[in-house]
């Protein structure tokens, strides 16, 4: 017999029935997964990062499997914000899914423009701001690796949409001081943080003896990076205990989701695991419920950051 567990959670002022979400770029716009389970049964669908204009993305090969993980270099292929808002969002809302739109830009201005377009859409739960993109105005330096650029992106989005939709800033782990980047975007107006985006990696193809991916480097995801995600979430939760975190990185089971929650995540996105198992989100959600019950938690809320309970500082 399992005790009933209240799985509901919040990020800023957005409420979700469960803490298990898709990860941006790992569920397209939700349609394909809906063949395996109703999208309203999970916490939220985080859509693939969308940009202003349609994009072809990077050349193939776009992926390489690595031990307990994979590299991808998709390069944000997508239809552009207008087509996305006209086609994908209405369909998702019809399914009664909670929708978090992920936006990505090449300039600080592009992020603000994207945020402005979201104002016209009702029914969205939050906006996730993917700042792990190259800043074309600054030698292609990734926004998330530059404390100042990160802050300015979030500041621009806040000015446009702040207070209307919770702003979740998605950070890259490839930085020397994650907590300070986190502090910067929170000061600039982020209501929540998404941790972690992929880790920069590369695979050399031993036949061509060149980098395997069309984009040369790619983002490492999957269970291989879970210890990095747990550390990032733990560190940032310790530094900013009031800021909700949407955790992600290698979650493939209820055990993994609970690990991230104990470290400080209020919600958990599942990415790569869906590629190997289209019903991963549902089984993770069920396993999480059982694990929480077995540990005497009546609500997810009680478990968030529980691993910090005896911290002196």
């Amino acid at each position, binding site marked *: 017999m399992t005790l009933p567990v209240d799985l509901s959670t919040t990020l800023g002022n957005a409420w979700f029935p469960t803490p298990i979400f898709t990860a941006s770029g790992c569920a*397209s716009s939700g349609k394909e997964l809906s063949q395996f389970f109703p999208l309203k049964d999970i916490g939220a669908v985080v859509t693939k990062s969308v940009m202003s204009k349609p994009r072809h993305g990077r050349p193939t090969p776009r992926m390489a499997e690595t031990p307990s993980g994979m590299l991808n270099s998709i390069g944000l292929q997508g239809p552009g914000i207008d087509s996305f808002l006209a086609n994908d969002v209405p369909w998702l809302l019809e399914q009664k899914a909670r929708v978090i739109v992920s936006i990505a830009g090449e300039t600080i201005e592009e992020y603000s423009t994207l945020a402005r377009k979201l104002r016209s859409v009702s029914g969205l739960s939050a906006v996730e701001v993917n700042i792990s993109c190259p800043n074309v105005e600054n030698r292609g330096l990734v926004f998330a690796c530059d404390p100042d650029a990160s802050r300015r992106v979030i500041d621009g989005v806040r000015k446009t949409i702040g207070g209307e939709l919770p702003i979740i800033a998605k950070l890259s782990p490839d930085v020397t001081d994650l907590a300070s980047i986190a502090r910067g975007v929170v000061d600039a107006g982020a209501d929540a943080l998404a941790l972690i985006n992929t880790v920069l990696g590369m695979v050399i193809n031993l036949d061509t003896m060149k980098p395997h991916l069309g984009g040369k480097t790619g983002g490492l995801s999957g269970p291989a990076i879970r210890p990095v995600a747990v550390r990032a979430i733990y560190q940032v939760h310790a530094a900013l205990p009031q800021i909700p975190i949407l955790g992600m990185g290698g979650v493939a089971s209820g055990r993994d989701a609970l690990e991230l929650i104990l470290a400080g995540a209020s919600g958990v996105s599942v990415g790569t695991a869906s*590629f190997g198992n289209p019903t991963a989100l549902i089984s993770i959600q069920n396993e999480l419920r059982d694990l929480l019950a077995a540990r005497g938690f009546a609500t997810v809320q009680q478990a968030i950051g529980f691993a910090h309970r005896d911290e002196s500082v």
Partner: protein
Amino acid sequence: MSSINRSAVQRKVTIVGNKRVGAYHQILLNVGDLVKSCKPGNFIAIAVGGESSKMVLRRAFAISRVSDNSQYGGTMELIVAPHGSGSRWLCAQIEGTELDIVAPLGTAFGIPTEPINALLIGGGYGSAPLFGLADVLKTRGCKVDMLLGASVGSKIYAPMEGKRSVNSLRIYTEDGSMGETGRVTESLLDIVQQRGIDVIYSCGPMAMLAAITALVADTEVIHQCAVEEAMACGIGICMTCVLPVTNSDGTTSMLRSCIDGPVMDGSHVRWDLVGKVPEVQQ
């Protein structure tokens, strides 16, 4: 918006046969009533490596044939080349092993409503889905010729039973160890002309598909090819498997070969752009 094969389900199935055939393994799965929704050209995605596997992605294989009246209920046949760690693992599994599969996936070969003259061209294990296709074409009254090619004879997959459904079969190997020496494209145009081919169905390495497309470009022949791009998910959610495909307005889109393929119209694929990115944004 294109969408995933409506019949796709995730299921546990059992291996009921695993036999070496030349360089390949013929693997038989008991898949029950799933056979009813499988069409020639569709593929299956299989989780590999067992419970403690370091391989996080499924492996894609063409459905070679399905059969509804075997002793096991519905069975599905795969032809698997032991290539890297995932396919080698699969080839090493014995009868009774349970597999986690998602199937059927992707598009299928278009079946003509009229009896036509069809030429089926397979490269390596690419012949696998062609025999099932030949069966179907035969029941529609089509004339079915087949060309198979590979580097060496052991990589030609042409089972006895399969040959029943084809009117003629020509085999090419690059080293001449079986059939004629050379490639399937060698005298393709002659064959097309002599036999009055209406449709070419092909499956094999991308270079072969591109070469066939180029050869028949100036003819009336329709070329349906099953492409093979590395796939992370097989169900349309990752965008890794894209191919540049010409739209009706002349622009190019990067289409997912797992849901807009694997079967595509060869003349629509921008073979020159595979591995590149179309320069003009849509």
